């Protein structure tokens, strides 16, 4: 597996959220070699849970570029996970690459790739790769839900960053004084108080 950062779906989702869900950000999620189909479903579900809206899967296999472009723009502001790119050869990647302007949209795009698919992208699609930059992440832990340890770690990060305890967050939410930023929503959910969102 390539030497890219390993991150679970919710952290990749946090990156997309920081960029803005209307930023047109492009990223690559590198799928695990074992049980990639199961990992894809988990990954899509976790991203959807993170954003609280469905994540649309678009399979590129057998789709002409014009059709793919139409799919990405109907609508153009949701989060799209593009699959089916792993068997693309030079001609397929070049066709996508040449049409980068037509594929650009407001919502984020995540390419779901194997190591082989990533090699094709980096070799034959310099314009797409330029949009992605270093935003290539190995999907950690099969992209599954957070473990208890990950949950605790995240709660500690939030506490340190906002210098606020979990009790304080709940108290503020109950009094309607909690900011509405996504991080506070995530915090409440992690505390088991999604009812206060």
């Amino acid at each position, binding site marked *: 597996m*390539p*030497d*890219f*950062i390993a*991150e679970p779906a919710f*952290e990749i989702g*946090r*990156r997309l959220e*920081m*960029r*803005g869900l209307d*930023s*047109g*950000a*492009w990223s690559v999620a590198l799928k695990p070699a074992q049980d990639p189909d199961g990992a894809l479903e988990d990954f899509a579900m976790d991203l959807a849970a993170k954003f609280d809206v469905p994540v649309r899967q678009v399979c590129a296999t057998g789709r*002409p*570029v*014009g059709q793919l*472009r139409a799919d990405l723009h109907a609508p153009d502001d949701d989060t799209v996970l593009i699959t089916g790119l792993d068997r693309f050869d030079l001609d397929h990647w*070049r*066709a996508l*690459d*040449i*049409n*980068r*302007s*037509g594929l*650009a949209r407001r919502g984020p795009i995540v390419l779901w790739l194997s190591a082989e698919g*990533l*090699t*094709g*992208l*980096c*070799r*034959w699609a*310099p*314009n797409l*790769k*330029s*949009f*992605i*930059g*270093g*935003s*290539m992440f190995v999907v950690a832990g099969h992209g599954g839900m957070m473990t208890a340890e990950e949950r605790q770690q995240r709660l*500690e*990060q939030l506490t*340190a*960053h906002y210098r606020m305890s979990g009790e304080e967050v709940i108290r503020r939410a109950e009094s309607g004084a909690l900011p509405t930023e996504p991080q506070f929503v995530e915090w409440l959910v992690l505390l088991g108080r999604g009812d206060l969102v």
Partner: protein
Amino acid sequence: MRKLNPTAPARTAIESGLVVEGLHSSLYRTLAARADLDPGSQQLLVGGVGSGKTTELLLAEKWLQEQRQTLPLYIDISAETDLSGLNSGAVLAGFGRKLAEAFFEAGFGESLPFRQKIRLKGVQQKIRDFAFGRTELVFVPDDDFVPDDDDAPPDLDYPPDFDSDDAQYSRPGSFVTHRVPGKLNPPPFPALQRDIEAIREPLVSFICAVQSRSLDVVAILDGLDRLITPDKFWEIVHQDFRVLREMRVAVLAAAPLSVLYGTGRPVSEHFDRVHHIATLRAEPDDNSYLKSVLSHRGGTDLLEPDEVELVCSASGGVLRDLIALARDAGETAYIGGSERILSAHVETATRQLGESYLRGLGPAQFVILRRLAKERFFDAGSPASIEMLVTRRVLEYSATDFRVHPALEPLIPKPD
């Protein structure tokens, strides 16, 4: 941090005041002034991926609009059609469509006599047909027909321009529906000389109508740089560009970096001027432009001076990489729960970027990169070297100064 968006549309970045206009010695003014003064001139803008070509073209458009001497038309062909199947005639189709739209949007049609306005609307439809195709009825004679006195006249769908006295209709036959493909519809067919002649007249109608207002037309063609190889670029543009020159339409076009080197050089010789956006200097004592880009986007508020230097250096002067590195370092710091962005966060972002450049390379490419890194040897004319330039693994600072992308260089494997 949202200002640090390396994929934001260039027009949005300009309108939001996030663009440093003097970055490339006000290249956009040089481009625009030549187009303004010399109708029919043809200039290419060449630069690597992520170097800011679209921004320069849009700034040129804005400058020309402010001068009020021309009607500048910015057209990104790749945003409108499947460029991978593009063929000759497509540039003229995209240009004509935009010209007609801009003409009426600018209100030029309002002051025209009614007849002329209606005529131009009809001309606009012809341009649409050329771009997107049309359906027509074609008369097909029936060769097996045996005349019979009792035969009744056939019940046919007649085309609008049907003339019963026309000799071709004297024989038995029938009309069939025939689809004429457009130049922007997939799969587009190459424009034949007669297609080009057919579109010339409608275009001239609009250009004359614009010129009667003492305005010249400037076509600003973006997206053609995606046609990475010089032969593909030339195959698509040469016929269309010749027509634009004959019609005294000035052209500013983005072109692939490969037209500067090797077999691409003869292509660039067809143009009045080729402007090269060289990669910006990234050394600590010569990176003020890069810092100004970060500053314009709030990067210097997020990053300490040492980390700004690291980001500038690791970007190699590639603008899109610069912005992405600053953003990615910020994200990594935030996800790690850090109060501030540290050198380690910039290093993580740099490593990610370097890995992305490393992926897809093989032993032959490693030899080229190692020779450049160690011996400063680089044969810019060889196809393998040009591929390194096009994919930004190698950056060009001048005609003789080539270097391995600094994020990639430390990751090149050592020879066995």
